[in-house]
C-alpha cells in the first residue's frame, strides 16, 4: 500500500513539475546556455498576481523581477550594484538564478497556499515578496515561520509591520500613510476647506486613507466624507455623488488601478468638478491615460518612482525596460527590481547562500540606495522591525506639455519637474 502511494506521489510531483516547469523554462531560457550545465541554480520563488484584480500591476512586478534575473545571470550584478563583490555572471560563485513564479490570482489565501508550496515543496533558496498589501499581510506569518529572508517590494500598508516584530521581511515600498504627499498641504495653501476621502476596503487603501485623514486634520481641512467602499465595487457613481453632494473641494483616495479609472469616470458622468482630484496607484500607470484619454488632464496621483529620478542606475533601468518591453517603466517594476537588489546586496555581502540569518541581519541593517528609492528599515530590536524608513514618494500630475499629455512631478520641491496646475478644470 505504501509503495503504491509513493508511486502516486512521485507521479503527481512529476506532473506538477512538468506543468509549471513551462513557466520556469521561459525564464531560464533567457540565461546563456553554455556554462550552466555544471552550476546548480539558486532557486528564488515568487507568488505574483498574474490574474485577478491586481493582474496589470502584478505583471509589472514580474517584469521587474525578470529584468533583475536577466542582469544577474548575464552580467553578474544589477544596475548600480557593480561595486559589490561577486561580480561574475550568476548570483554568487557563478550560480545562476532560477526564478519560479506562481500566480496567486490577487487572492491572499491562494498566496498562502503558494508560499507554502514554494517553501516546502519546491524548496526554494530564497523568496521575493508578492504584490499587494493584502497578499503580503496574509503570507507574513508563513514567511516568518520559514525563516527565509524575503524583501517585500510592493506592500505599503504599515500595519503589516507596526508592532509585529517582523524578523524576516523588510519593506521596500514607502509606507502607505505617506501616500499622496503634499496634496493636503497644497490644498490648504490654495485655500480649500473641504475634503472627501473615499477608499477601497483593502489593506493599503485603508492605510493610505488614514494617512490622508491624519494630515487633513493636522492642516485643518474639514473632512466632509470619509468612507470605505467594498473592494468588489464596480460602480463609483453613488459614492462620488455623496462627495459632490457634500460639496467636497478636494477628492482624494481610491484603491488599485481599476478604482482610479472608475472614480474619474464616475465624477465625469455626474459632472462633479472638485478643485483637486488626487488618487492612489492608478494615476501613475500608462493604462490610466489609455483608458481615459484627455479626461486625465490635471488629475494628480502618487508614485514611488518615475523615469528620471536620480537614484543610481535608475536611468539605465528605464532604458533596459524600454528595450525589453517597450515604453517607459513605472514604479511597480522598478520596486520589484529594487527589492531584488536588496536581496542581492545582502547575499553578496555575506558571500554564503546558506547563512540565512546573516543575510537577514544584513538586510535589516543596510542603509543604501537602489534604482527604486532609498532603503533603510527599522532595526530588528524595534517593535516595528522591517518598516521602511527612508523611501520617499512623489506626487504627479497629468499636464499638457508641448501638446502632449505627460506626467509631471509636482512634489516634493527638490524632485519637481513642473508646477502644480490649479484648480482642476473639469471635462
Amino acid at each position, binding site marked *: 500500500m505504501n509503495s503504491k502511494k509513493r508511486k502516486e506521489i512521485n507521479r503527481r510531483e512529476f506532473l506538477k513539475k512538468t506543468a509549471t516547469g513551462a513557466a520556469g523554462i521561459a525564464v531560464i531560457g533567457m540565461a546563456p546556455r553554455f556554462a550552466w550545465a555544471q552550476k546548480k541554480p539558486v532557486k528564488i520563488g515568487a507568488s505574483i498576481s498574474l490574474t485577478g484584480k491586481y493582474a496589470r500591476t502584478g505583471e509589472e512586478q514580474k517584469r521587474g523581477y525578470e529584468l533583475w534575473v536577466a542582469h544577474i545571470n548575464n552580467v553578474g550584478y544589477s544596475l548600480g550594484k557593480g561595486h559589490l563583490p561577486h561580480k561574475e555572471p550568476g548570483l554568487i560563485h557563478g550560480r545562476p538564478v532560477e526564478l519560479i513564479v506562481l500566480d496567486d490570482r490577487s487572492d491572499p489565501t491562494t498566496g498562502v497556499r503558494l508560499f507554502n508550496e514554494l517553501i516546502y515543496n519546491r524548496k526554494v533558496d530564497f523568496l521575493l515578496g508578492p504584490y499587494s498589501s493584502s497578499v503580503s499581510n496574509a503570507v507574513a506569518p508563513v514567511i516568518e515561520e520559514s525563516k527565509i529572508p524575503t524583501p517585500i517590494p510592493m506592500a505599503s500598508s504599515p500595519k503589516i509591520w507596526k508592532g509585529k516584530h517582523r524578523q524576516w521581511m523588510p519593506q521596500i515600498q514607502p509606507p502607505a500613510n505617506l501616500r499622496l504627499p503634499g496634496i493636503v498641504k497644497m490644498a490648504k495653501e490654495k485655500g480649500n476647506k473641504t475634503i472627501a476621502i473615499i477608499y477601497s476596503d483593502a489593506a493599503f487603501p485603508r492605510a493610505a486613507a488614514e494617512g490622508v485623514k491624519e494630515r487633513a486634520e493636522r492642516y485643518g481641512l474639514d473632512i466632509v466624507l470619509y468612507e470605505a467602499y467594498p473592494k468588489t465595487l464596480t460602480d463609483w457613481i453613488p459614492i462620488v455623488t455623496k462627495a459632490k453632494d457634500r460639496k467636497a473641494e478636494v477628492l482624494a483616495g481610491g484603491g488599485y488601478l481599476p478604482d482610479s479609472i472608475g472614480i474619474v469616470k464616475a465624477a465625469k*458622468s455626474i459632472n462633479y468638478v472638485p478643485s483637486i482630484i488626487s488618487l492612489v496607484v492608478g494615476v501613475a500607470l500608462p493604462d490610466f491615460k489609455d483608458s481615459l484619454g484627455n479626461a486625465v488632464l490635471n488629475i494628480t496621483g502618487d508614485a514611488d518612482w518615475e523615469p528620471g529620478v536620480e537614484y543610481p542606475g535608475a536611468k539605465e533601468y528605464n532604458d533596459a525596460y524600454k528595450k525589453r518591453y517597450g515604453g517607459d517603466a513605472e514604479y511597480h517594476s522598478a520596486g520589484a527590481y529594487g527589492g531584488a537588489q536588496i536581496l542581492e546586496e545582502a547575499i553578496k555581502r555575506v558571500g554564503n547562500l546558506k547563512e540565512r540569518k546573516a543575510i537577514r541581519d544584513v538586510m535589516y541593517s543596510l542603509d543604501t540606495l537602489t534604482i527604486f528609492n532609498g532603503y533603510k528599515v527599522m532595526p530588528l530590536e524595534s517593535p516595528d522591525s522591517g518598516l521602511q524608513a527612508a523611501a520617499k514618494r512623489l506626487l504627479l500630475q497629468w499636464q499638457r506639455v508641448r501638446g502632449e499629455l505627460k506626467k509631471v512631478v509636482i512634489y516634493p520641491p527638490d524632485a519637481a519637474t513642473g508646477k502644480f496646475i490649479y484648480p482642476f478644470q473639469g471635462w
Partner: protein
Amino acid sequence: MDLLPVIYNALIVGIFIGSLYGLIAVGLSLVYGVMRVVNIAHGEFVMLGAFLTFFGWTLLGINPIISIVIALVVLFFFGAIIHQCLVERVIGKPMLSSLMLTFGISILIWNTAQAIFTTNIKAVSYLGGSVTFLGVNISKSYILGFGIAALLVAALFAFLKFTKWGKAIRATSQNDEVALVCGIDTKKVRTLAFALGAAFAGSAGSVISMTWFIFPQMGFNYLAKAFAIIVLGGLGSIPGALIGSLIYGAAESLTGQLLEARMSQVVPFAILATILVVKPSGLFGVRER
C-alpha cells in the same frame, strides 16, 4: 446637508439602477416559472453580453447601442443551445440536479472566458455624460438601461399576452402536464423561455458594459442580486420580479447614501430575509404545485 433632496435623489437613481437589475431578474424568473429550474448560469449570460459589446466596440468599432441588439440575438441562440443540450435533461428531476448542472455550466463559462479574455478589468467608454431628469442628475447610461429594460419588458408582456407562443409559455408555467395534453410542445416552450431569459440577460450585460466595469467573474454579483429580487418578488412571477427589482435598487441606493457604501450591499439581503419570514413565498409568489 438636507436629508430630503438626498433621499429623493437616491430613490430616483435607485429606481433606474433597479430597472437594469430587473432586466436580469425577469429572465431568471421566467425560466423558473416555466420549468422550475433555478439557472445559476444566468449571471454568465450577462457577462457574455457585456464582453460581446466590449469586443464589438474595441475590435470592430460597432456602436455599443447596436451591440445591445446583437447581444440579444446571440445570447438567444446560445441559451437555446445550452438548454437543448444540457438543461432539458434535468427537467423534472430533483432541484439539486438542476442547481448543480447549471452551476457546473456557470463555472465552465466564466473560467473559459477568463482564460480567453484574461482577468484584466475592462470598460466601454461610451456614454460618459449625464442628464437632468426629474430634477436629478443621472448618468446617461442609467437612462439607457432604464429605457432598454422598459422596452424589453413591455415587449415581453405583449408577447406573453397576445402571441400563440406567449400563451403557450403561460400555459406551461401554470401546469405543464395539462399544457402537454392540450397539444403544446412543452419542450419547445421551455427552450424558448430559456433562450428569452438568456437574451434578456445578455442585453443587460451589454448596457452594463457601458455603465460599469466588466470582468469574467462579474456574473455572480448580478446573479446574487437577481436571486434576492426574484425570491422577494416571488419565484416565477414576472411582475414580482419587476417590483422586487425596483424595491431592491431603491434600498441599495438609499442605504448607500444614508449609511455607507458597504452597508448598501447588506440591507437588500436584510429586506429579503424579512419579507420571506413574513411571507415565505415572496410578494407575489404562488405555492408550489
